[in-house]
């Protein structure tokens, strides 16, 4: 009896948290709408600067109707996907080379440290000179922004593989290559996923910068173009879509993580009741 009651309580608890989260969001949007509606009569500030959620939805509907919204989303999704994967591959390859060869590490690391901290926006002109403004150049920029932070995680992951696993594998007859593929890579993977989650924010930041380079579609382009023409409705729409895309990508990564790393244990209880 008592046990069942306990279970019920815990069920209600989980539900309550979820409810508060959703209520919080609803209150946020209602408040925003409310302020905008008040503002329309009271003129506290220029309504151009804060379009009401309903207005943003109107813009969205308009673009859905004329079919451009899907084009914008499609272009950005393609660029982010391609750039992200390219970045991951480069980070993995460089990470392997750097951890395998001390010589390579010594040669390349000082250069990466030199170039790493430069905001992509700063070297856009030079980037355009060298790589043009084609699709591959946009993807390249996004890949670059993704790869930089990810590399550190990859190297850390590879370097911190539990040496006992390596020893175990070798005394089970694994060659150096096999150790690398069967032990080091899977062991470094969790770290790489952490790195991916961290660099995803930069991937999306880079999208906006990449779409400054002669894009004629994409969510970043939408923002830049809307900035030029001061269409705040468009800006908010693009921002919202970027937010949603980011969340979708992140939860996709987390879901993949959960599937791949189902061998991990989790959970840690509070210290005192």
């Amino acid at each position, binding site marked *: 009896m008592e046990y069942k009651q306990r279970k019920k309580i815990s069920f209600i608890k989980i539900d309550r948290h979820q409810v508060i989260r959703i209520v919080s969001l609803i209150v946020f949007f209602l408040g925003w709408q409310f302020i905008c509606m008040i503002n329309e009569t009271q003129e506290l500030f220029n309504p151009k600067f804060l379009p009401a959620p309903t207005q943003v939805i109107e813009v969205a509907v308009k673009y859905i109707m004329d079919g451009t919204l899907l084009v914008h989303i499609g272009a950005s999704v393609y660029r982010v996907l391609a750039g992200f994967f390219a970045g991951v591959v480069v980070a993995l390859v460089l990470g392997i080379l750097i951890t395998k060869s001390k010589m390579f590490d010594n040669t390349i690391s000082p250069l990466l440290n030199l170039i790493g901290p430069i905001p992509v926006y700063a070297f856009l002109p030079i980037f355009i000179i060298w790589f043009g403004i084609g699709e591959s150049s946009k993807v390249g920029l996004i890949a670059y922004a993704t790869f930089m932070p990810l590399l550190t995680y990859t190297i850390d992951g590879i370097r911190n593989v*539990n040496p*006992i*696993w390596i*020893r*175990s*594998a*070798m*005394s*089970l*007859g*694994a060659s150096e290559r*096999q150790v690398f593929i*069967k*032990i080091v890579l*899977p*062991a470094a993977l969790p770290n790489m996923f952490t790195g991916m989650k961290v660099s995803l924010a930069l991937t999306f930041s880079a999208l906006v910068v990449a779409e400054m380079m002669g894009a004629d579609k994409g969510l970043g382009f939408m923002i830049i173009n809307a900035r030029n023409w001061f269409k705040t409705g468009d800006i908010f729409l693009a921002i919202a879509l970027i937010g949603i895309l980011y969340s979708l990508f992140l939860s996709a990564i987390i879901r993949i993580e959960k599937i791949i*790393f*189902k*061998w*991990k*244990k989790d959970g840690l209880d509070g210290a005192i009741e």
Partner: protein
Amino acid sequence: MATLEVKRVFKTFEGLKSDRFYVLDDVDFKISENEFICIIGKSGCGKSTLLNLIAGFTKPDNGEILLDGKAIEGPSAEKGVVFQEHGLFPWRTVKQNVAFGLKLAKRKDADQRADYFVDLVGLTDYKDKYPSSLSGGMAQRVGIARALATDPKLLLMDEPLGALDAMTREKMRVEILDIWQKKKKTIIFVTHSVPEAVYLADRVILLKDGQVKLDQHIELKRPRQVRTEAFQNYVHELEQLLTDCDDNVFSE
């Protein structure tokens, strides 16, 4: 046929913090086929260092180690190793862990053999579980099954029972002896528990300050009875050699 010769081996480490210069200082002994050797000694006396040399993870500074007359080149499936921290691959299930070496060797019977060894250590029901859901004792048994599966000539065990609680530990000792008798292996078993060594070993090698202080045959019939005087005498003798503690110290 697995005989091991450790010939005048010296080993030290860069940046070693110790009052002695060599961690292993002229270590020399021979092990015949199918022997069960226990190596005992205080913490830091070089037990793990010696085992790592035999396993081929590190190389001696001087001297040589021969397995069946051939110098050890590096780690290989001939020399199975069981670690104190079990060293299971957490991303592989129990069975996948056991099958790891078999798959590497491209053995066609990998699956059956893995199943057989999982059964042998009594974990049939846990075959498809990941190591994170095993208790310490179970994990250790998987470690042993994994090392046995590739049928190594020599089994090296570095305090394989150190992390277990007393009950599990006792069961495991019985199981290890059982496996050794069934599978006819040469085993080198590191421990710092003297009674454990006396219970398990044909021969106990006592290391002190990197040197072999004693190489003692245990002339007791198996299964050995702990509470017999003969057993306790061995324990007492070895403990006296090991420590300067007073009589209050009791066997573990």
